């Protein structure tokens, strides 16, 4: 609450009044009644705030004031207050092409970044200060040239088309690229970032990829340079037209001027594109990351090659080893086959021998039994027929049967016994059909 005014005067201090530091307390306030305040309304909220945070009035006032100040500061952030250059103030409004519109409105630190709202506010502020009526009231001359400059600047900056035209040629917003030496000495990113940021304002595609830093990935860097090599710019150069065709000139003249202007714009545009390309080339050449990536790639390639070689070597070794293995296996097999062969021969020989022996036994048995002729000498024909029958039997039986037969005959001298063995054998053979009925009849009984 504002302090109240009491109009009745205070009494005069009685004589002899004394007090410690001019103050004399007498008694305290009468006991208060306790009631409920209604928890409603802004003042109650203030009360509740004080009570809950245990603040005194002055503390609360201070805190609230601080917050208010903060709020006001926030509101004022981006407020336009730049000192005005006396050179600027004395500008001629007619030379508006050469004027820095942002500087006129005090927006030089924002330039192309200034929002429409900022421009409007800046205009208002400047008008309030430089309005010719105000100047006249202050007694100075009726020089309204700077006011005209303000109006022109606002007209251009608030018209999106005109503003682009001006921004296109706003050299004050350009950032010169650092030289090679500077870049090598200083921080590449720090030096080049503002350059690209300034160039980015011309991009039709927003947002523009950022330059990044050491840690950018290869893709990011590639994107960045690809973007800049395919840069799509809205920059145009109408603002720098030397002649502006005016309505009272004749058509041909106008067309001529237009043609000339167009040619000039085109030329400047081409130059600008080339300039940008050179700039990106320079940056690319100086960009450590590109080298880094190249090295990385090379290292990667080398590694791959080495790996490949190692692999090939290993494969060759493997092949050799496999071959050796194979050879060994083959040798072993041969060996084994040989051994087996030798073994077979022995057995065969033994079998042959056995057969021979058995044959001998067979023949011997017949001989021993005197060719079944009893006691007398056997005639040659008997011997011959007996032996041929024996031969026949022998030829008809296989080795085992031969061995068995030999076993039966072995040691037998008795002609009957021998003959019965033979007869048995012949019968068996006949039974099996190996001998014809007529064969071996000498051996039969």
């Amino acid at each position, binding site marked *: 609450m504002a302090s*109240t005014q*009491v109009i009745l005067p205070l009494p005069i201090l009685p004589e002899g009044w004394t007090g410690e530091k001019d103050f004399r307390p007498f008694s*305290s306030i*009468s006991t208060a009644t306790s*009631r409920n305040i209604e928890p409603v309304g802004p003042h109650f909220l203030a009360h509740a705030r004080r009570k809950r945070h245990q603040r005194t009035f002055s503390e609360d006032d201070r805190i609230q004031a601080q917050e208010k100040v903060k709020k006001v500061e926030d509101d004022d952030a981006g407020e336009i207050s730049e000192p005005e250059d006396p050179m600027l103030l004395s500008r001629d409004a007619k030379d508006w092409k050469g004027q820095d519109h942002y500087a006129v409105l005090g927006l030089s630190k924002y330039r192309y970044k200034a929002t429409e709202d900022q421009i409007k506010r800046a205009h208002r502020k400047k008008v309030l200060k430089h309005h010719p009526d105000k100047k006249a009231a202050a007694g100075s001359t009726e020089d309204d040239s700077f006011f005209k400059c303000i109006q022109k600047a606002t007209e251009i900056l608030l018209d999106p088309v005109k503003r682009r035209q001006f921004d296109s040629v706003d050299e004050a917003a350009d950032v010169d690229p650092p030289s090679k030496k500077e870049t090598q000495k200083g921080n590449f990113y720090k030096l080049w970032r503002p350059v690209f940021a300034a160039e980015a304002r011309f991009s039709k595609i927003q947002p523009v990829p950022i330059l990044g830093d050491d840690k950018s990935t290869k893709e990011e860097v590639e994107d960045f340079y690809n973007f800049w090599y395919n840069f799509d710019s809205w920059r145009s150069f109408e603002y720098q037209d030397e002649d502006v065709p005016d309505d009272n000139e004749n058509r041909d003249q106008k067309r001529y001027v237009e043609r000339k202007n167009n040619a000039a714009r085109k030329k400047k545009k081409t130059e600008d594109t080339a300039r940008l390309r050179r700039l990106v080339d320079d940056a690319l050449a100086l960009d450590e990351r590109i080298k880094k990536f190249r090295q990385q790639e090379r290292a990667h390639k080398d590694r791959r090659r080495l790996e490949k070689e190692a692999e090939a070597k290993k494969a060759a070794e493997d092949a050799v080893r496999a071959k050796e293995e194979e050879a060994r296996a083959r040798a072993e097999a041969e060996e084994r086959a040989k051994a087996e062969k030798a073994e077979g021969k022995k057995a065969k020989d033994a079998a042959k021998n056995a057969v021979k022996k058995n044959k001998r036994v067979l023949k011997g048995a017949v001989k021993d039994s005197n060719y079944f002729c009893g006691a007398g000498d056997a005639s040659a024909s008997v011997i011959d027929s007996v032996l041929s029958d024996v031969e026949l039997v022998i030829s008809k039986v296989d080795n085992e049967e031969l061995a068995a037969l030999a076993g039966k005959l072995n040691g037998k001298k008795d002609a009957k016994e021998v003959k019965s063995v033979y007869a048995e054998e012949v019968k068996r053979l006949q039974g099996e059909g190996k001998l014809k009925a007529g064969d071996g009849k000498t051996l039969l009984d």
Partner: protein
Amino acid sequence: MSDQEGTGAASTPPERIVIGIAFGNSNSSIAFTSKEGKAEVIANEDGDRQIPSMLSYVQGEEYHGTQAKTHLVRNSKNTIAYFRDFLGQDFKSIDPTPCHASAHPIEHESTVAFSIQESAEEGTHVPITVSEITTRHLRRLASSASDFLGKSVNAAVITVPTDFSEKQRDALISAAQVAGIDILQIIHEPIATVLAYDARPESKVLDKVVVVADFGGTRSDVAIIASRGGMYTILATAHDYSLGGANLDQALIDYFAKEFTKKHKTDPRENTRSLAKLKLEAEATKKALSLGASGSFSVESLADGIDYNSTVNRTRYELLAGKVFSGFTRLVEGAIQKAGLDVLDVDEVILSGGASHTPKIACILQSVFPEKASILAPSTSATAINPSELAARGAAIQANLIQEFDKEDIEQSTHPVVTATPHLAYAIGVVAISSDEKHGIFKPLMEAETAVPVRRSAQIATPKEGGDVLIRICEGLREIKAHKPEPKPKVNGNKPGNASDGDGEDSGVSDDDEEEIRQIVWKAGRVLAEAAIRGVKKGGKVEVGVNVGEDLSLSITAREVGGKGGVRGVVGRPKAAENGSA
């Protein structure tokens, strides 16, 4: 008003759309605060800003507001009206009189309900509890507000009469919860009313005593509120549950019924349907009489198929309703007495509620209160706000103030720990002199019933020649002095602002009638402290700041305006060392 408490609000779930709801027995209003901070009352689909708190069920269809009200004639048994006061009450403790002409309350599972034929089939009566009805009513209100705002309303500040019990509040909160409305705060109707006026940009924060007279449809409430630096304390309340706009209607009903009987020999009051028609039309006539000098009354087929047309002028109406008017004034006077105050103490009388549109009520109250008291009613003040909208506006303003806060924050702020505070028993002020009276006149800096802690400052003139002055801070006693008109009465304006011109010369006020003149006179009571300012310049002023702490300790600062230094002193709290420390 502060971001301090709003800081925690960042975490609040989806956007909170808060409205103010004035939930009345007869009518309800909804209001919101626009972006410019202006409270506005929302009209529902029918174009009503006062939405009758009624619901009617016809063949399974629900009617609300004015549409439901018209059903009182034909479908009174299925129309629920005047149910607000039943909310959260026992059947035993309710007064069903207002519901005589609509659905009757019945007892249902220890609460109050209405037996309603909700669906189209005959004889299917379902008991609908009061909380259910409240939920449906609030849902309709919220949907009207949502339609108007284009955003779904999910929270509200709602007003209730000062005598609403804790149980009733809980019932209201849960009923609203079911309707999908989060009740941020329940505030008292009279306080919302005061807030609606105090939130106007042109109003100043003053120490004042406000009488809020809320004359509703079926009941009237009066609250005496001490407004101290924008903080409100209810000093006393008075309620009359059988006095309201309905009584004014009744006066008109009786009048027209008699006229009708005279002509047609049948009393329309004996037929329920005729009575309902009479009631509706009488209310319309009453409203017309609040605006114009005469009101027409016409009912088709009032009784026995006879159409009835008549007019009544305001004078006759005022005569007819004279008794009711005096009932209103008696209620107001009773409340003032209850607060231990005098009509002279009252600085502002706010009339709210539908019946307050009646010019005669404001007129009578104007004669009851002293001239300095402003009567805020449409007929006495050009800038008065529509009395029917006050509560809803106040609720909307409060809703706007707290909508940023967390629920927890609101609960903490409205907790008794914060709200229960000591209030000064006596005014505290400084003693000044007037030229002819050497012993000094008490000038209050803080009025009685000011909640502590409080801080006030004043700039006080010094004698013409300057020099050393004495500042005596003391408690003041208010006395009412009755003067006979002969001796020239002195004006010692009871408020600093009312003091007369700079020389302190008295100016006679009155050449009034023979009546005795009653005035408020301040008497300096207990001296609390004295301070001296030495060497005040000629024509200089002394600024005195008084600060009463929560523990009733008093600290005083005094310095010459524009001067350096000054005196600073503290008087300890009561019970502590009586003389405190310097």
